[in-house]
């Protein structure tokens, strides 16, 4: 199917949906209203879980907070639903920010467990507060008015619901293609790499969590004014769990998965409620069991949900060629020969093992320095200490005259150090260009709002061009939209180099960049590094290929058993008997 056919398909879908009130029964419109309201929440879950790698079972509670907020304000205080909207969203954001601030530093399973617990407490709270009508809830919520038009009829609020959903989907899709959106997508699969690029994992997680809560809040506001009545039941934990499964069943890796999942579960539920009572008088119990079976089977056999299957029949997204843009601003490199990095008496202990013991060396601007030593000598640990991925137990590290010993990964990245990892840390399901674009994070400014509203396009174009240049520079620019996971391991290392270069560092720290490369590729890499030296970029690298190192570097630091053995020019190091002993054992 061509791209044009895809556009036609999308237009047809929009027309069909827009005209729905004229050709379907009003019950179907009610169903569509619910699907739209659920899909808004599921959209937040897709963003949170599918893209951000965070999971929440508690979204129903955000829906509830917003629904109760607007219901209370419009009935008890008699305010306009539009004021209710502002109040509902403000309250949702406040609660989400507080909860997020507390729980989002804990990764993995603690956050979802926390959301189960707080989803339950909010539910009990709704049911026990006099001001909120206890378990009876609040009735008589007014309908929404747009000017003098009442949105009371099912078919009227239908347009509002699906309009809001369409806008929200578009905004989230835009966001995901922007600078902060890439940061969200990079969250899945380990935080060390993300922080090493200067991205605050906590900040991105928090904002993602708040956006998801906002979508749930919008849904709650629409729900309250559509059903004109709120009670605790629709916001209980069961509903919260259902929202997560809508996203998973629909396809949490795709933005449209939310709508597909919401439609699927709502329709299935509707069908089961019609059909099951014919088979058993325990229809309600059976419905729950059927859903549980579907969920478990889906998680066992189709974790990607429905979307990956549907996408086979839909056109692939257009991949525009990367247009040349104005280059991103570059930093002024420190003048050659000035002291750049100084490491003094560095010390790190893992339990009883002194992994790094009193190591000290200096790197001057414009040098290529190699750190070599047998396996387990502590080289990678030194790199992790310099870049802040590990905290040192003692010693001092300065960079450009600034003490960065305790600075943390992000500040070190800001200071101008970029790195690659011994065990490649890429996002295999993101494209090459997106992986490299992550490296430009600190050189670009566009925030969430600019990204969501596509006000970031000028800067984005420049960043894309920069990323493409870096891909070309390391020689893997053939298909920038290929997925990083499709590259062989050696080339993945090179992709990490491109990502580090995209940060325009003053010092680039490479952990075994040549491992897994063929001889011609190694020669090309050596050429690239020499070129960097000419530009004034300083290189510090760990490498096991002695020939590669000897022919390239200006100076070598040799480590053995966590301590520095010697330091000197390649020739001096090669001649030193201590080095020969460390590598080959005692000659005598």
């Amino acid at each position, binding site marked *: 199917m061509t791209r044009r056919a895809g556009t036609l398909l999308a237009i047809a879908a929009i027309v069909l949906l827009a005209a729905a009130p004229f050709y379907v029964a009003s019950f179907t419109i009610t169903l569509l209203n619910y699907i739209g309201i659920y899909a808004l929440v599921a959209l937040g879950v897709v963003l949170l879980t599918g893209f951000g790698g965070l999971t929440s079972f508690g979204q129903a509670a955000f829906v509830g907070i917003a629904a109760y907020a607007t219901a209370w304000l419009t009935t008890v205080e008699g305010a306009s639903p539009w004021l209710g909207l502002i109040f509902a969203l403000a309250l949702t954001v406040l609660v989400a920010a507080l909860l997020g601030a507390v*729980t989002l530093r804990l990764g993995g*399973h603690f956050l979802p467990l926390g959301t189960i617990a*707080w989803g*339950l407490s909010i539910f009990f709270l709704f049911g026990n507060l006099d001001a909120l009508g206890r378990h009876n809830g609040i009735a008589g919520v007014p309908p929404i008015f747009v000017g003098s038009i009442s949105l009371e009829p099912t078919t009227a609020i239908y347009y509002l619901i699906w309009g809001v959903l369409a806008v929200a989907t578009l905004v989230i899709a835009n966001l995901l293609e922007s600078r902060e959106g890439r940061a969200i997508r990079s969250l899945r*699969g*380990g*935080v060390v790499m993300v922080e090493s690029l200067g991205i605050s994992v906590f900040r991105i997680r928090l904002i993602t969590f708040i956006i998801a809560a906002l979508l749930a809040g919008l849904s709650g506001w629409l729900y309250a004014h559509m059903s004109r009545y709120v009670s605790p039941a629709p916001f209980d934990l069961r509903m919260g769990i259902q929202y997560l499964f809508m996203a998973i069943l629909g396809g949490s890796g795709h933005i449209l998965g939310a709508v597909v999942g919401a439609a699927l579960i709502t329709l299935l539920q509707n069908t089961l409620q019609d059909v099951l009572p014919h088979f058993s008088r325990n229809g309600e119990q059976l419905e729950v069991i059927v859903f549980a079976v579907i*969920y478990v089977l889906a*998680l066992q056999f189709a974790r990607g949900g429905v979307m990956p299957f549907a996408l086979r029949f839909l056109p692939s997204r257009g991949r525009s060629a990367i247009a040349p843009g104005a280059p991103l601003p570059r930093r002024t490199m420190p003048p050659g020969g000035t002291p750049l990095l100084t490491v003094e008496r560095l010390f790190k202990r893992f339990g009883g093992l002194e992994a790094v013991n009193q190591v000290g060396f200096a790197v001057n601007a414009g040098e290529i320095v190699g750190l070599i030593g047998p396996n387990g000598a502590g080289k990678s640990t030194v790199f992790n200490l310099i870049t802040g991925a590990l905290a040192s137990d003692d010693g001092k590290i300065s960079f450009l005259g600034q003490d960065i010993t305790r600075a943390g990964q992000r500040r070190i990245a800001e200071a101008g150090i970029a790195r690659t990892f011994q065990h490649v840390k890429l996002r295999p399901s993101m494209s090459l260009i997106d992986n490299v674009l992550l490296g430009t994070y600190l050189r670009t400014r566009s925030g969430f709002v600019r990204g969501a509203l596509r006000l970031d396009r000028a800067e984005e174009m420049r960043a894309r061009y920069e990323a493409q240049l870096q891909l070309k520079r390391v020689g893997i620019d053939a298909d920038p939209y290929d997925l990083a996971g499709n590259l062989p391991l050696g080339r993945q290392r090179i992709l990490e180099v491109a990502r580090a270069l995209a940060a325009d560092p003053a010092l680039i720290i490479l952990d075994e960049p040549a491992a897994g490369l063929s001889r011609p590729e190694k020669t090309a890499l050596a050429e690239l590094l020499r070129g960097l030296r000419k530009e004034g970029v300083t290189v510090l690298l760990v490498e096991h290929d002695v020939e590669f190192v000897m022919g390239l570097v200006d100076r070598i630091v040799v480590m053995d058993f966590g301590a520095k053995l010697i330091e000197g020019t390649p020739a001096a190091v090669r001649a030193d008997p201590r080095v020969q002993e460390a590598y080959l054992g005692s000659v005598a």
Partner: protein
Amino acid sequence: MTPDIGLILGIDGIATGSIYVLVGLGLVLIFSVTRVVFVPFGDIVAFSALTLASMQLGRMPGTVYLVATLAIVACLVEGAHKWRRGQKRRIARGLVGYGVLPLIPAAIAWLTAGMDLPAGLQIPLAIALVVPIGPLIERIALRPLADASVLLLLIVSVALTFGLSGLGLLFFGPEGFRTKPLTSEIFRFGTVIVTSQTLLMVATAAIFSLLLFLFFEHTLSGKALRATSVNRIGARIVGIRPGSTATLAFLLASLLGAVSGILIGPTTTLYYDSGFIIGLKAFVGAIIGGLVSYPGTALGAIFIGMLESFASYWNSALKEVVVFSVLIPVMLWRSLSLPQVDEEDAEVEG
């Protein structure tokens, strides 16, 4: 609040807390060995109490059908798995393990239904009926995903909670039950009144905690479980089979859950879905222990019991809100005290 009331609430809290200790230990056991955050664990507690209640009323416990259903599904899953791997001769063994063994207590319960067995027989039978539920669920729903991320396993286990509550309603019905008291003595220590039920709960929790400790320290199977929880791959390399350690972990945890159910049965009216809340409260306790530490979990569980007891004196309607809200400061404290781990497995898609 007078000191007397405080004391009563405290004793009450310790009694409830000791149930959470048993449940919490089971949760940590399952999590550390299989990485499954087993949300439906509380259901086993409730099912065990409901089983005993049915027996006391002279009815056939719904557990018989529940276990039979699970056993049939587990046999199908196991049989299909072995068939696909071409291990046809092992199918029979699987059928014995997942079909015959769990059905023995079910068959006894079925045959003796309506008979007025003495409590000394009813209780062990109720426990034996309930214990297979854990391992059967593991075989059906969790083992096929044994290598998936913690997050995915958690999501599956939440889905299972849905399913079990549906099955619970189907087999036990919507009514609530309270079992006959196990003991009814009352002891006075000065002004303090302690019931023998409280003492029984605390003592049982202590004994089972001790047994669990001895099992881990002094038996080969216990050491295998510990090895698996320290390093799964390493344990596999030295020949510890992940499947059998998982079964053992679920079996032991189920036993702890079943015993908890027997103990809690006479103290409160339980419904088919009461287990969820019990399990979650134990979770809050286990999270205080970081989901890894047994002593930490025990302390956390006692704390939750106390908190619940005092909160219900303050406002019984909002006690759940208090108990679950305490998780937030607990998580804050945890997040500040634990080092950030680089989790490579924050993936939902496979």
